[in-house]
Structures are given as C-alpha cells and as structure tokens.
C-alpha cells in the first residue's frame, strides 16, 4: 500500500509530467516502439496470398517502386516479409524475455532475501542450467516437443532465466545489506514486502537495462533456431531468420538483408532509449535527487 493516495496533488502532477520529463531521445524511442507495435497489429490484415507470392522481378533485387525494400532469396517482397514477421519477433522474443526476467527477478530477490540453503539450492540449480549450452538445450527441447510459438517462448524463457537470475541476485544481495532492509526486518516485515517494496525499486534501472540486452539475445536465439528449421515455420519468418535467409545478398551488394537488420536495430535501440528514460533514471531525476 502506498501513500500516493494521500497526496493526490503530487500524484496528479506526477502523471501529467510523465512525458514532460522525457528527453527527446526517450520520446523518439517510445515512438519507434509504438510504430512497430502498430505494424505488428496490422500484419494479420495483409492479403493472405501476398506473403508467399514470388515476384517476376527476380531474387535479391534492389529497391524499386514495385518492391520498396527489394526482394528476398526466393524473389518475395521484403517489405511484406518484414511486416508479416513483426508479430512473431515482438511476440516471441519480447514475451520470452519478459517471462525470463520476471522469473529471474522473483527467484533472484528470493535468494538474496532468504539466503542460506534456499539461496544455495536456487543458485546451484540455475548454475546447472547455465552450464548446458543454450542452443543445444533449445534444440533438444524443440526436437522433443515439436515446434510451436508457445514452445519457442518457453524455450527462450528457460534459456535466459539463469542469466537474469544471476544479475538480479547480485544486485539484490548488495541492497539486502543496507540498513533500511535491517530496519524493515526488525520491524517484522515479511519476505514478499521486502522483496517488492524495499529492494525492487532500487534495482529497477539495471533490471530493465538487462531486459533490453536479453531481448536482443532472444532475437538471436530465435533466428538461429529458425535457421535450423526449428523456429518459426516457413513461410512465416521472424526478423532474425529474415537476416539469416538473405545473408546471400551481402556479397552481391543486395539490400534485402538491410531491411530486417534495420528493423532489429531500430527496435532494440528504441527499447534502450526508453529504458534510459524511465522515471527515476533520467538525468534530471538524478540531479534533483
């Protein structure tokens, strides 16, 4: 329970200032994310046959009025492919990252606050997971259960939970040594309160930054699974696999590979920009505090 309700004036002012405190870069990042979300929402409305349609212009064509971003290795329109791949990319990679970080955060905080045997057990268990090469693990799981979108999400989440756990735990252990945590314990607070109210707000910044990085890793894992034919199934493709498929265009100076690369770059940079501008982490916040 927060006292924000007691101070309605401050709360409202804060809400009004939500965007005002953001730097131009932060707003740009927000706009780019919003753009890709809209594209993702629009993707299902593409004409059903546009996706697999092979152009008569040929493979690895450059930009033209007919194909704004060129054509791919089978002569399909790149723009359509990227738009169609958006929901998979954002959906699978983002949801998986979110799940991995959520699990990592809960377990990491728990380990830091509880300490003792629980910390030991969790750390050893997740260390074991880290020691298995992530791609091998993903391959085995996908090979065993068959490929589907929910399974891909689960695989990426399992692969990235231990890393997130390690980072959160090490941050939380430092905070857990602070006097205000001791005061809270002496007050008789339970573990969930200490984890959520006392520690979490103080590690939110690095947690989100870590999430942004992990999103990029998840994209990469997904792309490599797709490359092996175990990820998103053709004719659908996520951005990562679009890059993989069209690598052949590079030696020929083709542009087909540029489209999906730029899409990945803009989205990840936008996410980083937004994370840097979240409340409490902007430069202005740091100065006024």
């Amino acid at each position, binding site marked *: 329970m927060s*006292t924000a309700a007691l101070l309605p004036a401050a709360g409202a002012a804060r809400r009004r200032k939500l965007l005002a405190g953001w730097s131009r870069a932060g707003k740009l990042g927000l706009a780019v994310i919003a753009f890709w979300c809209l594209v993702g929402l629009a993707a299902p409305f593409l004409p059903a046959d546009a996706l697999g349609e092979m152009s008569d212009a040929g493979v690895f064509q450059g930009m033209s009025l007919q194909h704004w971003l060129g054509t791919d290795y089978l002569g399909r329109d790149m723009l359509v492919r990227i738009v169609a791949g958006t929901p998979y990319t954002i959906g699978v990679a983002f949801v998986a990252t979110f799940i991995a970080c959520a699990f990592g955060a809960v377990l990491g905080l728990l380990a830091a606050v509880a300490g003792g045997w629980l910390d030991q057990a969790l750390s050893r268990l997740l260390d074991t997971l880290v020691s298995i090469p992530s791609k091998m693990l993903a391959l085995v799981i996908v090979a065993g259960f068959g490929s589907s979108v929910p399974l891909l999400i689960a695989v990426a989440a399992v692969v990235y939970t231990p890393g997130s756990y390690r980072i959160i735990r090490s941050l939380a252990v430092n905070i857990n040594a*602070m006097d205000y945590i001791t005061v809270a314990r002496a007050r008789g607070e339970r573990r969930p309160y200490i984890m959520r109210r006392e520690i979490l*707000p103080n590690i939110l910044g690095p947690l989100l930054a870590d999430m942004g990085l992990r999103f990029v890793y998840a994209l990469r894992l997904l792309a490599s699974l797709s490359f092996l034919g175990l990820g998103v199934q053709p004719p659908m493709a996520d951005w990562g696999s679009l890059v993989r498929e069209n690598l052949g265009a590079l030696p020929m100076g083709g542009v087909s590979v540029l489209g999906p690369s730029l899409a990945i770059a803009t989205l990840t940079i936008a996410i980083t920009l937004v994370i840097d501008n979240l409340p409490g982490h902007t430069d202005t916040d740091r100065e*006024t*505090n």
Partner: protein
Amino acid sequence: MGATVLVNELRVVAQAPGGAETTIVNDVSFRIEPGEVLALIGESGSGKTTIGLALMGYARRGCRIAGGAVRIGETDVLSLSEGERRALRGRRVSYIAQSAAASFNPSRTIMDQVVETAHIHSLMPRADAEKKAVQLFRELALPNPETIGKRYPHQVSGGQLQRLMAAMALMSDPDLVIFDEPTTALDVTTQIEVLHAFRRVVRERRTTAVYVTHDLAVVAQMADRILVLRDGAQREIGTTPQIITAPKDDYTRSLIAAANPKARTGDVVAEGATPLLEVRQLIAGYGPIDKHGRPAAPVLDDVSLRLHRGQAVGVIGESGSGKTTLARVVAGLLAPTGGQILFDGRPLRRLVEERSRDQLRRIQIVFQMADTALNPSHTIADILARPLQLYRGLKGDALAKRIAQLIDLVQLPQSCARRMPAGLSGGQKQRVNLARALAADPDLVLCDEVTSALDTVVGAAILDLLAQLRKELGIAYMFISHDLNTVRAVCDDIVVLYAGQKVESVNRSAFGHAARHPYFNLLATSVPELRPGWLDEVGSARRAALPLVAAPVDRSGLCSFLDRCPLRVAGQCDTRTPPRRALEGGVEVFCHRSGAELVALQGSAAAQEQAA
C-alpha cells in the same frame, strides 16, 4: 624546514553540468609563517578541504579556482602550468588524507609506497630513501621501524597506517604539509597516539602545516592559529588560546558550546519497579557454533544490563567492542547463544520471526548512517507511513494526520513529506530516521551512534531532541556511542564494553570520582579536552601495549584488557576470571584490583579531569 604560505582572496566555484556556478570558497586570505601550524575548522560544506586542496593548486572535479593567489615561499602556485604543479605536489606540498586505508594500494608493500614520492621526483636513490623512511617511522613512534615497511597495508592497524601516511608525506621534506582530518576515523585511544606522533615530527622538523578538521579539541592540541570557516567564508582567525577562550564571532561560540555538551537529564527513575529491559549474561557472536555452545567468532561475553522505563543507558566502547552487536541481539536480528533478555519482566524470544508484533513495535532501532537507513526510492511520507500501517493499521486521513504530527515532532518542515531522502541534509535525514522509530510508539529505542556521522552543532540538536522526546513521551534509550562526551551528556547510566566484556557500569552522578576499570580510565583520559596543552600533560608511554610475561593458553573468562592493562597483576590477571565488584554508588567494576586500589593508582587522572 617550512616556507611562508600566503593565501590572498582565494575564490573557488563549483558548477553542476549545465547549471549555474556556486561559490564554495569566498575571499579567504591568510598567512602562515614558517614552522607554524594553521587549523582550518568548520562543519561539512564549509570549504575546509577545498581550501586544503587549493593550496596544491588542485580543485576537485566540477570545481574551479576562480580567483585569488596562493604563494608557497617564492612560488605563485596558481600561475603554474599543470606540469609544474605536478612537480610541486608531493615534493614541496604534501597531503595526508582522512582515510589512510583508502589511500594505500593494498597490493604493494608499505615501503614501496612510502618511497614512491622520492622516486617520482628523483630526489634520492632508493637505498637512501629507505633509510630516511625508517628514520621517519622511528620518529613517528611506529613499532618495528626496521621491518614495518615490508608489510602490506592490511597487516598494520588503522592508527599505524595513518602515521605511515604521514611518513610518506614527509619524505620529501615538504615546505607545506596538509593534514585533512587525519584522526577523525580513529578511536580516541588510537587518536591520542597518532596526535602525539604528528605533533612531535611537526615540532622537530619545524614543518609548516595546515590542519583541516571539525574537532576543536584536537585543533587546540595541534595548531598555533585557527581559521574558522562557515559556508566557504572566513568567520574568524586568531591564535589558538584566543579562539578557544575569547571567541569574537557568534558562530565560533556556537562551535565551542557544541564541543562541550551540556547534560540533558531525564527525570529521576523509580527504582525497584520491574526494569523495562534486562539483559542477563548475554553471549553472542558470529559463525558456526561449536559443541560447547560458543560461536566461532564470539563478540559478546557475559554482558548484563538493566534499563528502566524512561531511562537512558549509554553503551560505550571502541570499534570492535561489540556495542552494535548488543543492539542487534536486543532487536532480535542476531540470535544470542547464551543468556537471556527480559522485556517488561517477560523473557523475549531470540529472533524477530519468533517475537510478537507488539514486542517488535515496542523496541525500535535507529542506525548511525541515515544515508543507508532510509530507502532512497521511497518518499519520507512512505517511510513514516509503513510502521503506522503495519502496527496500527492506520489509513486515509488518520494516517496522513499522524505523519504530519511525526514530522512536527522531529521539527522538520511539512514540505519534507513528499521529498525523497536524497533531497534532505544529513541532520534532516537523521530526524526522519528517528521519526520512523517514533511512529511505532516504542517503549525502547536503540540508538546506534546516531550522532556520530553528523556535525557537532547538528548532532547537539539531535541530542536535544532525544532528551526532549524522552521527557515528553517517557521513552527509554539504549544509547550506543564511541564518544564519551555524548554519552555523558545524554545518559543516566554508562556501561563500558571492551572486546565484548562489560568492564564497568557507572552512574553519571558517580562518573567523576568512582573507581575506574583501567580500560575505562584509559578511554576517559584519551578524550581530547578543549584546552591547549592537554596533549602534553597526557603522556603516551603508558598507553603502549605491554608485553606479556607469558601468554595465557586459554583466554576464556580472563579480562580482555589484559594485554594493554598497566595495572595488571601477574599470576592473577592471566590465570583467573576477575570478580565483578559492586562498589558504592551503583558502580560495578570487572577487575582483580579493589576499588580503593583503582582509585589510588588512577586517582590523579580522575581528579585532574574533575578539576578541568
């Protein structure tokens, strides 16, 4: 041999990135004659360290020397190029920082670092430099001067490291030495040895020195003249006796008043009633517990004390004496391995998780560092609201009202409620820290060094507040401190801990004339007094550790002060547990010597202090 130092209208400004410039040192002028020691005294933020650094032509990041002149001998420091300034630093001007532990490189030997100055400035060959370093170690009264240089910084004590840093600074026979709070982080019994050593070398070498500190009593021993600073401006400059006995400036007077804390008495406590807190033969420590039930690293050994409602008991001791551990055990944060704690006549469970919410409410703990005791991501209102919600279930208007009351109670402006801890000053944070404890309506507040991190004037205000709250609300305090003056000012009873043993408990009224345990006597006579010449009267020879004839095999139960005790009795102190002697006036001493013997052997010191 030092040189004349002349500072004229020095001005230093600080600039936040993109912000306006603020003047942090404004128009400071002074002159130091060769061989003279000038003290810069002031509270935090008064610009004393900034001036010290400006003497080397250096300004910290974000700061800039905006005007004025600094002359050392014939050199105009501020007109030198960066390269020339580098040649000046360490060679003609040297600097001794507050924390020697943070200033030494832990991975190189001490000798390597002490002779480094000579090496960098190519002053002398390494063999000569080492010879000179050993000579300096000897002058600074360091143990084993021939071999101490071979050790690493973590292998010597804090006080020794501070003296080694002085040796490093004196290697080049500088024209000017800047001491920046060199003894602030040390225990008093260590401080006195370091001060002795510093004073001797400064006098013998006739070094020109600037001594930066906030502690008037230390300055009175070290300096010839004193410059009082506040908010970067010069308030008063004069000779040491004049500043201390006849200050002209109001601010100087308030500093001197704060250095001599007045007694803040509570009402007389009804004896005989059930004590609020009773600690019986407490044993506690850290690490795994062996088969005898003793922890691997014992910290508290057989500590007992009683505390009545509305009473304040002071727990005093040096770092490592177990004072904070005692508070943690009483608060239920650390499980004792032996003994019992009674609260209001009923035994208290060992750990927080086992105690009832009401018991937790009635005992509150306040930590030393308000910076780490307040969650930086909560507002002050959030911080104060939590105990009210947890213990009393307040919400809505009642909660807001109580928060406002608490903020008033600790004399903070209401506008603080919406701020984050980072937006408050050190003293304000400590008040919030206190208000959070008061929010629970406690019967007992454990104050762990609550004023140690604060400036004297701010700390005095907090002590006043504590005394007032005690009178108004009838709260009992367990007041933990390393500062005898503070404890004497606030507490009715004083408990002295040494290495986890309670060596003495004494009532304030009996403080001046009661028999003292040898450790307590050492501690009491080591607290610097605010009069020039005090350091000369207190000899340092008897303070050094005396070698034991034969180290006892099993030390458990023996007096922990044995190694340092000047009054120990061979064959008795190193073989048997001393008795707890109850003397008249509620004094209890843990010593083989009788009360009469203790008074006779140490009486002169006690009487002397009484006279002062």
